[in-house]
């Protein structure tokens, strides 16, 4: 089961779950993902040690997609 999670004040919240074979669940996850991007979140897929990718569309085959806030110099 793939998960879309958002890092927030609770630690993290699971926004959506889907399987590659479940079109309806994936479609709902895509809608949630776009809604979160509209709120300023950034989609990131952890790709194992030392690697992550920025995603603008929800990848159907990903196991985990993490929504994070933008970073900035302090």
């Amino acid at each position: 089961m793939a998960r879309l999670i958002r890092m927030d004040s609770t630690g993290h919240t699971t926004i959506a779950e889907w399987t590659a074979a479940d079109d309806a669940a994936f479609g709902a996850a895509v809608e949630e993902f776009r809604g979160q991007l509209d709120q300023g979140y950034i989609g990131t897929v952890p790709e194992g040690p030392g690697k992550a990718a920025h995603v603008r569309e929800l990848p159907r085959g990903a196991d985990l997609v993490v929504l994070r806030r933008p970073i900035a110099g302090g």
Partner: protein
Amino acid sequence: MTADALPELASVPWRSRTDERWLRRYGRLWHAWTLLYTVPFLAAGIAMLALEPLTAPVALAAIAHAWIIPELYAFRGASVVRPKGPRNERAEPVAQGLLGDLLGHDERDLQRQTGLALEPGELGTWLVGESGALLVTPDGRRVHCFCVGVSERDLPPSDRVSHLLLALRTDEGGFATVANHAFAGAPWRVRRRLPVQMRPALDSARAAAGPG
């Protein structure tokens, strides 16, 4: 690291992209700058003592300046990784779980012990904290201190580390470009200004980076 650029780069279009050459140049500039404000005070103090021993109080003040000013800069550098802001301890266990999933076994233990996540990169070995990061150069002889964070104040500390870690893993050079460079200097200068519990992380990063 992936080739995909960090989206936050759009917010700093005037900055040239940070790379190994940029870091080397900045390291040299910081070294020269340190000499520039240390040597004159030191020389003046010694000269005063040599010419007129009665000037000893003023000479000692000048020598103290030569010691204090570099220490203040090192303190500023080390401060980028000091814990800051609200702790949100209630959500921390959940955030710690996610961060733990992102880290390897040894890095997870080190992060729990020190608060800093060790991340090998192409520019060197990173130590990522809640509101900043340290970069130990591949030769282990210099530490660059970067001030960078996420503006959402109510995030638990481990989530702040995860934010920075994911951004770093997405685009290392972009991460260093977005971050504000606060200091560069010898590891021993930064180490002595780090909170005691964080010092083993710098030792591990130096060991991972190479000889120094």
